[in-house]
């Protein structure tokens, strides 16, 4: 079975700095792939290259067999990639409804959808994440948790096949964090999206992820089920330092 997305030998250089060094992995349809690594390992850079925000220096990215390495971000969105941002980036002057509405209109080529139809569509996504009551409030007046949910709704409104989730736990209190995890699980079930989840909080990924990829200093350390990766020596060394065995 062909993988949904196949990343081969991805390299990203910024001048002399190699941020992503020959990373290869596959994403299978319907799974939740976790992506872990210490701070500065290059996780967000990998996502930026995959979604088209930054052009990759070399390597190929294939989606459903189609080479998308040189595609612009809006073309990748039409192919089915959507992302949320580590620090939420809403449209500050648009209301919650109009933000999701923009996604709904532009996400794919829609047939027989007028502006009002798209508005009804957008309200469904808002309702799914629980923001229906806040639909007419400007995005810059929402709380942090609501901003994250808005990001999720905006990404889902493009009806993606693959959803990149970038550190959704950061800045949420435990109650909100539980809600966020529940929301992502419900999104997977109801919309059938594949999830690529970058996260620092290991406990979340241990439960939610089917497989995990670990990177450090731009290179891939390990790949496998959560148990395998967590017990991998290289991964532990990356987090704890080289002499960890003496203190374990």
């Amino acid at each position, binding site marked *: 079975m062909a993988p949904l997305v196949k990343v081969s030998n991805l390299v990203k250089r910024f001048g002399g700095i190699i941020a992503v060094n020959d990373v290869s992995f596959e994403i299978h349809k319907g799974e939740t792939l976790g992506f872990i690594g210490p701070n500065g390992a290059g996780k967000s850079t990998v996502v930026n290259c995959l979604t088209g*925000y930054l052009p990759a220096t070399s390597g190929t990215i294939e989606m459903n067999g189609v080479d998308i390495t040189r595609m612009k971000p809006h073309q990748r*969105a039409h192919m089915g990639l*959507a992302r949320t941002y580590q620090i939420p980036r809403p449209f500050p002057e648009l209301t919650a409804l109009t933000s999701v509405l923009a996604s709904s209109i532009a996400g794919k080529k829609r047939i027989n959808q007028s502006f009002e139809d798209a508005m009804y569509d957008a309200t469904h996504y808002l309702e799914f994440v629980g923001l229906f009551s806040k639909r007419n409030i400007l995005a810059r007046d929402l709380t942090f948790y609501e901003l994250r949910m808005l990001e999720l709704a905006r990404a889902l409104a493009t009806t993606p096949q693959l959803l990149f989730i970038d550190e959704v736990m950061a800045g949420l209190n435990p109650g909100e964090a539980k809600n966020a995890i529940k929301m992502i699980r419900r999104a997977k079930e109801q919309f059938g999206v594949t999830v690529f989840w970058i996260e620092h909080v290991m406990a979340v990924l241990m439960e939610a992820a089917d497989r995990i990829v670990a990177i450090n200093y731009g290179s891939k350390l390990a790949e496998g089920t959560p148990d395998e990766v967590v017990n991998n020596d290289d991964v532990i060394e990356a987090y704890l330092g080289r002499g960890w065995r003496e203190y374990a």
Partner: protein
Amino acid sequence: MVEMELKRDRIVIRLGTKKWEWTLEPRYWRNTLLWAAFLMIAPAVAYFVSPGLINTMISANIYAAIAMPLALMTIGTGRMNFGPQFYIGVGGYTAALLSIAYGWGPLTTLPFAILMSMIAALIFSPLVIMARGLYYVLLTLLLPLVFLEVTFIYTDIFKGDTGLFGIVPLLDTGNAKNNFLIIGYLSTVIMYAYLWIINKILKSRYGLLMAAINDDEDVAHSIGININKIKIIAFVAAATLIGIIGWFYAHYFSSFAGITYLPLTFMLKVLLVLMIGGRAQVFGCVVGGYFVAFLEMLMIRFMGPIQPLLFPIILLILLFILPEGLFGLYRKRRYREYLPTIHVRR
């Protein structure tokens, strides 16, 4: 096949796989229709009272008709164009040169003016993609000044020193007062056409996509908006609409000189119509246009030679004390729909 359905409160238009809905809400039409009726009767009244007023009305309509595409360009490209009068120059000189050389009437030169404006806009459209914020401001500021220099350099063609004369006038009924009246109505029709088209665009899905681009280009790009296409189309469409006004000026005054329209004095007037009327609110451009035109006329009549000095001072004071513009004073009491605002990016 274009199909139209009429439901109880909306008109649905289908073309292939695209679908547009126009919701009819007559309760919002009252004010617009009242003002429309007023503006339609005003030239006729002025005809009998004081024909000079029709001249001011024409100026007002045309100022509004330049400011509205400028608002569309600003919202659509996310940048403020500080040299829209460049396209007035393009349209005007095309119409003037063709009319003088071949003796063509206004209707024949119109398609060529439109074509040249589109070509000029397409040539400079990469600016919209590549230049951000302040660089864009500077380059658009310089373009008309350089065009003015070119008209002086090639003065045998453009007659930069004296201006081009002898252009075929818009229409000639033999009676000057009747001419003014008909051209007054024509300018009102042009202004309304622009108002209607641009308002519809800004309230439709394309206006929303433009607002999204305005707010955050990269995020808009990643949710599937083809930002370059929308920016270039907005730029070229707005530039063409401004070029048509250049055509109007050339045939209305039967003369066209770059020195009148290309330097910064004229640009500041148009910019202030936009700002004082209500920044990037389309109806505000109409209010601003009438206000600026009538203010100018009153000041010239009652103040004489000090007018060029006091006029910008008054406009500067108004710019500061009216942050929402004149139309913003009205809208604050009746908030109806959302319209995007201008951002000039660093």
